[in-house]
């Protein structure tokens, strides 16, 4: 009973190892997702060796939040012990997750988060902080004044909205920075390149680019390059293509990341929670920063990562334990 009192949310203490882990993937095909899945599988292998996990079941909602709900329902029906998920919508899976939680299933949500609190834990970097840090770097890089483009992820998605909202106060505080235009595209190279090229012709003077994630930055750099325009300061994420362009074009740039090992960490956290450990309701992952000081370290590892993939920072169990210990 004393153990149960200390236990994390959703956990009833009636589940015994080895556990079955359900990984409710929203879309398994994109490279970022594949890399994430890789870290999860590695972690599961590790936990299997320790006799803590017996099985990993994986579903793929093919990008559809409705399908993801259906698959989570099936996981509940088949009585998995833990569900880890990246949410296809910040609101849609709320009720089914609450159902899972009520059944004593450990629910660990990472990356794209749900609004509901009926989960064991949420694990993520801070999207608002992401946007704020990126904006801060850019404002500094252009000397506090100038005209910029803002590249956002898809419209109607919480993550892209949150990052943009995080950048807002910084931009507000610097009235000399004007936004020429904003875009909303999928977090991909081609649409970003297309949009930025169109904007290049409409706006002869661009001093900086505030790119809020994914491969958008690489698209912007390519657009400038192909149209023969001088590169400008730019923010971005740890996409390998962007980091390589950064080095090749000698950019004034800054990047952060959504580490793929969030997957492994979520798996680890789930097992910890099931084993009766206390797990914080929200684990905030500090944003790693890539800048000119450490970009070479990242690029040195590039060959270990897919060409269209993301070069993530190293991780180990010690890191996980530290993160779980935070309050």
């Amino acid at each position: 009973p004393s153990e149960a009192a200390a236990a994390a949310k959703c956990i009833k203490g009636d589940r015994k190892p080895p556990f079955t882990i359900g990984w409710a993937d929203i879309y398994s095909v994109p490279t970022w997702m594949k890399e994430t899945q890789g870290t999860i599988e590695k972690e599961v292998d590790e936990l299997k060796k320790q006799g803590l996990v017996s099985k990993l079941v994986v579903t793929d909602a093919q990008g559809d939040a409705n399908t993801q709900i259906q698959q989570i329902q099936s996981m509940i029906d088949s009585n998995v012990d833990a569900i880890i998920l990246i949410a296809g919508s910040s609101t849609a899976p709320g009720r089914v997750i609450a159902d899972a939680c009520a059944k004593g299933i450990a629910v660990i949500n990472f990356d794209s988060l749900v609004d509901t609190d009926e989960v064991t834990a949420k694990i993520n970097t801070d999207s608002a902080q992401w946007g704020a840090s990126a904006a801060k770097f850019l404002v500094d890089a252009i000397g506090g004044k100038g005209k910029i483009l803002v590249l956002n992820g898809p419209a109607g998605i919480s993550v892209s909205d949150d990052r943009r909202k995080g950048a807002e106060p910084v931009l507000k505080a610097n009235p000399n920075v004007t936004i020429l235009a904003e875009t909303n595209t999928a977090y991909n190279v081609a649409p970003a390149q297309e949009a930025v090229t169109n904007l290049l012709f409409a706006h002869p003077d661009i001093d900086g680019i505030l790119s809020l994630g994914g491969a958008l930055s690489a698209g912007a750099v390519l657009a400038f390059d192909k149209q023969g325009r001088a590169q400008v300061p730019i923010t971005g994420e740890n996409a390998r293509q962007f980091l390589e362009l950064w080095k090749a074009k000698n950019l004034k740039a800054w990047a952060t990341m959504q580490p793929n090992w969030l997957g492994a960490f979520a798996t680890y956290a789930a097992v910890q929670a099931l084993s009766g450990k206390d797990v914080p309701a929200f684990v905030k992952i500090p944003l790693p920063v890539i800048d000119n000081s450490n970009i070479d370290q990242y690029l040195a590892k590039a060959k270990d990562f897919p060409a269209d993939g993301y070069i993530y920072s190293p991780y180990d169990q010690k890191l996980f334990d530290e993160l779980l210990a935070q309050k």
Partner: protein
Amino acid sequence: MNPGEAVRFPKVRPRALFASRPVLTFLIVVAVWIGASFVKPGFGAFGHLRYLVELGAVVGLAAIGQTFVVIAGGIDLSVGAIITVSAVGAPLVALAFDESGAFAALITLAAATVIGVLNGLGVAFLRAHPMIMTLAMATFLQGLLILLAGGSAISAQSPLLEWLGSARPGGVPAGVLVWAIASVLSLLALHATPFGARVFALGANSLAATLSGVNVPATTVAVYAISGLTAGMTGLLLLGMNGQGYVGIGDPYLLSSIAAVVLGGTSILGGSGTYAGSIPGAVLLVTITGLITVVNASPGWRSILFGSLILALLLISGREARRR
């Protein structure tokens, strides 16, 4: 020409030509360009227009196969997936001895064509509805992508792809050059060969085509093969232009290839149309997209504007064409 023939095949009057969908769509493109350059000076810059045509080449290449398939009475919902597979798969077949990258490109195109052939076989012999067959194929290819993607770390750049993505022989982007050649060939195949006539026959009435001696299965397989081939070419072009293939790179081109075909006046019901309309149709689509990008508005309003523009342009070209 003897006098009887003049009655039987009267000369097309220039006015009638101007009312034809391809010409009309072309005129609309020009009008939009002129209008937009007044509003946004940079829009009408030569470099920008050239870029729009270059983007049009991507949609236009995908629309070649789609045009053949649609005229033949089908539809290809797997073009997006084929584009992605070739863009992601091409680097995987990079070979040491193949310095130019041509061999890898050929293998990729061959694979894309084989995918198209499989689509065609399914439609012709399993009698699966084209939507079902190609949708299922797209699903298969997604599965294939899980295996292909992210598995290797080979960098994509080969001289050929580099050329395709950034060379401008005589000021013309290489992609546009490829598109132009492919367009001429497709127009010839469609309108100047017996094969083209069979495609039209198949789409207008496949039963009558069979009874008239048209080899319907072979023609069906051929149009889907063409669609696979041109989707493969689109994939390579995108790979060249973006320096990298990635999963999802082809997704936007499924609906835009269909929209370009229909905007150009080809009937979605099959049997009538021409690739000559899909060409301005493709440029029109990327032009509208470009126009919307430079408009400062919230995403919701931009989406509304985009839809309204398509509808408005369709009203002009669609109505004119019906007056004939």
